[in-house]
């Protein structure tokens, strides 16, 4: 799916919620439905550095698309991680490099993406882009 369409879909989905309780419950539900990483992928090298909750991320190239898988030990972070995976996974390296997760602002979750937030989400997005750059270089050779 086109990444802008994914973005619009997420924004529409979150537009349904009236208050923070519903929004956070939905985020937690998204996290619980995330196709998580097997335990053996919870390694130091897959760990995205965050101060409080931990995020693990893997990336593979399928054809010319990047497939991300991720997990977190905290429920809210995991939901936000699931949103990022929905957003970026299955896109081309160029699309990933060139698109920022603007929906996070629009659904009122901007504070979770702040680089000073200790949940590792900002580092995760950075790491996803680094993977995309590496795959782009690989595809070019």
């Amino acid at each position, binding site marked *: 799916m086109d990444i802008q369409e994914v973005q619009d879909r997420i924004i529409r989905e979150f537009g349904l919620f009236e208050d923070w309780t519903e929004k*956070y419950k939905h985020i937690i539900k998204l996290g619980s439905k995330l196709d998580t990483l097997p335990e053996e992928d919870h390694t130091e090298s897959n760990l995205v550095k965050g101060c409080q909750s931990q995020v693990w991320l893997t990336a593979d190239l399928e054809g010319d698309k990047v497939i991300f898988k991720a997990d977190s030990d905290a429920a809210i*972070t995991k939901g936000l991680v699931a949103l990022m995976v929905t957003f970026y996974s299955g896109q081309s390296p160029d699309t990933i490099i060139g698109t920022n997760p603007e929906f996070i602002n629009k659904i009122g979750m901007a504070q979770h993406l702040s680089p000073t937030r200790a949940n590792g989400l900002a580092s995760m997005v950075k790491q996803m882009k680094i993977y995309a750059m590496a795959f782009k270089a690989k595809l070019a050779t």
Partner: protein
Amino acid sequence: MDKVNTDIPTKVNWEEVRAQFPVLRQKVNGKPLVYLDNGASSQMPQSAIDRIDAYHSHEHANVHRGIHSLSQHATDAYEATREKVRKLINARYLEEIIYTTGTTDSINLVASSYGRKYFREGDEILVSEMEHHANIVPWQLIAEQTGARLKVIQMNEHGELIMDSFYQQLSEKTKMVAVVHVSNALGTINPIEEIINAAHEKGAKVLIDGAQAVPHSVVDVQELNADFYAFSAHKMCGPTGFGILYGKKEILEEMPPYRGGGDMIDKVTFEKTTWNDLPFKFEAGTPPIAAGVGFGAGIDFLNSVGMDNIAAREQELVDYATGKLSKIDGLTIVGTAEHKASVISFLLDGIHPTDAGTILDKEGIAVRTGHHCAQPVMEHFKIPGTLRASISFYNNEDDIDRLVEAIEYTKEFFG
């Protein structure tokens, strides 16, 4: 610290005291703020805020330099805090009070200056398992440079120091014992008098991290006989960026400067520079003058309430909170030492501390979540972190009740 007077004098009107803290009169996420993160930073009373404002509005000039009136006045105001600190902790001499930027800076000063001069290959530095990173890393850095070794006093499942572990590792090789007075992660009050005396018998010096102790109790450095005692202004009604290192005069005099620059010199030539006297030898460059002046007002405020009263009131609130929290199903208090002060760390079954902290924040409750800069403590208990409610005298029973309600709500939320 373990002999806290628990008779609450009726003369203190705690609601009036609380009303002096403007930051508490606000809503966060639509709910009245309950501030229980005093262990990270306490709030400032109106008098300290006004004092800093007045300094900037009418008194600002550089200190220790100018002959002009404004500079003299700024110097007087800034130096007045030193005497207030001396009195507060009952140091013998004014020059034993070194201004720093905080506890971390104070410990780095000792590790760097004392360590560089005195530590040798094979010497040992004894810290404890419950130290804040600020009382671990500076020692690791100097150990690497000098060949000294870091040894660790273990703690038990209640979060108390195992004194056998201390005595087993204390020897003639021990050059420094660096231990926290009150643990920031667990609230444990350590038997520092015993540690100090035993260390001295072996010829070791002792540094006490008092960041969580001075704000909550009467600390008398002469009675304790600590060689160094470090604490921060921002945990005791003062502003950030300011702190204190107390050191015994005869030890400080033998220590080389920590940083070079203005104010710390006696005479500078390109051949040789001689140092200024204590305390200025350790205070290079233009200091945070407004913060120092504001801290003085913070100490005045604490004295007006009375440190004895503060200690007793906080003990009452900690006991109230411990009682209430213990009754919550699925809540485990981490750190159950017999002697505890101001800090309650806890976990909720099946809920990550970060998740719980996020929901508590939505309910207007400010607590700290995470490892509290004490990763070895979390490693000891095999947990990723805790939620920490840290209490100050301006909190009240209502704050604790709101915390309890919000925890119940958090459990429902993730249930």
